[in-house]
């Protein structure tokens, strides 16, 4: 009898207060959504590190340019490799002289002293010791390759630091999410206490208390999912704006279009589902807490 009209029971009881509360939650969700999207795109420190850190395969002097490009193309095909670019001896010389001006005289003695090389960057999401080792193992046996530079003894340390940085970022995200859930629980509890007399009125007139709690939780879940969706949309828009305005954004966070990648979409769906479930849970916990405190 009472189900259809009392689905959005809190909205019917106090639309103004609920609107303000929802607006507040939207702000929190916007913060969380932006944080989450930045983490998904960047992988924490992965994007920055993979942009800065290259594996260099130094080729022998005798390797012609076409062969060098062929090696680069083959390396690009490895699953862990983001990009592999062949640099000819001439390009290598230009880079050298740009980095160390005034050493032009070195070439006068006997031609270009630098060989060509292949500059390899790993995919941000695959950056690990195992990936470095697999690239090293693929290149080292080649007769055209003189040497493979992977960072030596520093590589494991840097990768360990990267893991810590990522853990700190995700822990920060988790803490922020937990803090917001705690705020939602308090909001739910206060609202339930405020409307305790209303709920008692309804219960005394045959509306099931359990049903009311579940309907409120369902409504809170829907609201949470909706707010999360809006926040992700707004965060994506913000990423596009920042990317257009600041060049470092792409280096640190990544290209916003990668939001459309299947892995990212799966994570965003998980975010929406988690937002819905936690909002519903907050509603139920707030309801129970309010009832307990009234007893």
């Amino acid at each position, binding site marked *: 009898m009472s189900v259809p009209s009392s689905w959005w029971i809190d909205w019917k009881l106090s639309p103004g207060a609920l609107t303000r509360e929802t607006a507040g939650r939207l702000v929190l969700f916007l913060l969380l959504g932006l944080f989450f999207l930045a983490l998904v795109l960047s992988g924490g420190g992965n994007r920055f590190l993979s942009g800065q850190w290259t594996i260099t395969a130094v080729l022998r002097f005798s390797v012609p340019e076409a062969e060098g490009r062929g090696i680069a193309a083959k390396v690009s095909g490895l699953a862990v490799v983001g990009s592999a670019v062949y640099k000819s001896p001439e390009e290598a010389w230009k880079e050298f002289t740009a980095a160390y001006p005034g050493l032009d005289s070195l070439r006068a003695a006997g031609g270009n002293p630098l060989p060509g090389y292949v500059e390899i960057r790993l995919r941000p999401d695959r950056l690990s010791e195992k990936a470095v080792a697999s690239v090293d193992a693929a290149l080292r046996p080649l007769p055209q390759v003189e040497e493979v530079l992977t960072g030596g003894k520093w590589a494991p340390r840097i990768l360990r630091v990267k893991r810590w940085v990522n853990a700190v970022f995700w822990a920060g995200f988790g803490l922020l999410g937990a803090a917001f859930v705690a705020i939602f629980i308090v909001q739910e509890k206060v609202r339930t206490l405020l409307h*305790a007399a209303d709920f008692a009125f309804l219960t005394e007139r045959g509306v*099931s208390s359990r049903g009311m709690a579940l309907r409120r939780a369902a409504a809170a879940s829907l609201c949470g999912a909706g707010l999360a969706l809006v926040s992700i949309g707004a965060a994506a828009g913000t990423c596009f704006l920042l990317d257009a305005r600041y060049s470092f954004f792409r280096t640190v966070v990544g290209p916003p279009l990668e939001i459309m990648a299947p892995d990212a979409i799966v994570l965003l769906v998980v975010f929406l589902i988690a937002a819905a479930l936690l909002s519903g849970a907050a509603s139920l916990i707030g309801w129970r807490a309010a009832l307990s405190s009234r007893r």
Partner: protein
Amino acid sequence: MIEAFRLGALGRDGTLWDGVDLSFGDGEVWLVSGPPSCGKSVLLRILRGDRRPDAGDVVVGGESLFRGARDAVASFRASAGMVPESFPSGAFAAPRPGMARTVRDLFRLSALVAGPIAATERQRREEELLALVGLSAPDSEAGTRPCGDAHAWELSSLSLSERARVALAVELLRNPKYLFADMLVANAGKDWTDKLGALFRALAREGRTIVLAERAVPDRWQVARTGDPAASGPFSFYRLGVPAPEPKRSDLEWRPDDAGGKEGA
């Protein structure tokens, strides 16, 4: 039909009453009277399913309220209206400073229980009911609040009589099949005794069962005491005569010239 068999209730100091039998038929108005603190409110709460009796059982429409199906009480409550002795309470009227509830809020709450009602239909019924209980704007107690839409009146500003009548109107919005009212006639004031009697008779003619708890029987009501005194505990059960003719809606509507004066708070 509401029937009770060998009902008993315990109070703080022992047995409040015991062995009460009663039978209230559909389309009847019943008045339960008794001395102060004899447990009239408790009886009403038990009959409505708000409190489990310490002895006996209540049967509504042939089904036990407390020993039958689990949802029997909830479904019975959904079809029953309740006007408590003190309602709306202070906590309800203003749950926190600056958040005063209005008559509109109370109707909105009742409409939640009633199920889907179109907004215009609800508005029409609310206005009709407010007029029925003498709470349309021009008829309100002068000087107590700004004139205007009675829906906007704050509950905390209402007099005792107005609160009782608002509570009645709010319950009637849901068209309850059963109506329980605790001290409603006394709280509504002398000026409303006859009008409420007429209203209850009209409601009974529509097939509703009305159960009133009052300390005393209103003087001008034509009532007949019934029931076995030995099975009535401390209560006296009176049945209000309900004439047979079909009711005319206009009989129920309250007109300003019906009022003999302003009722006190």
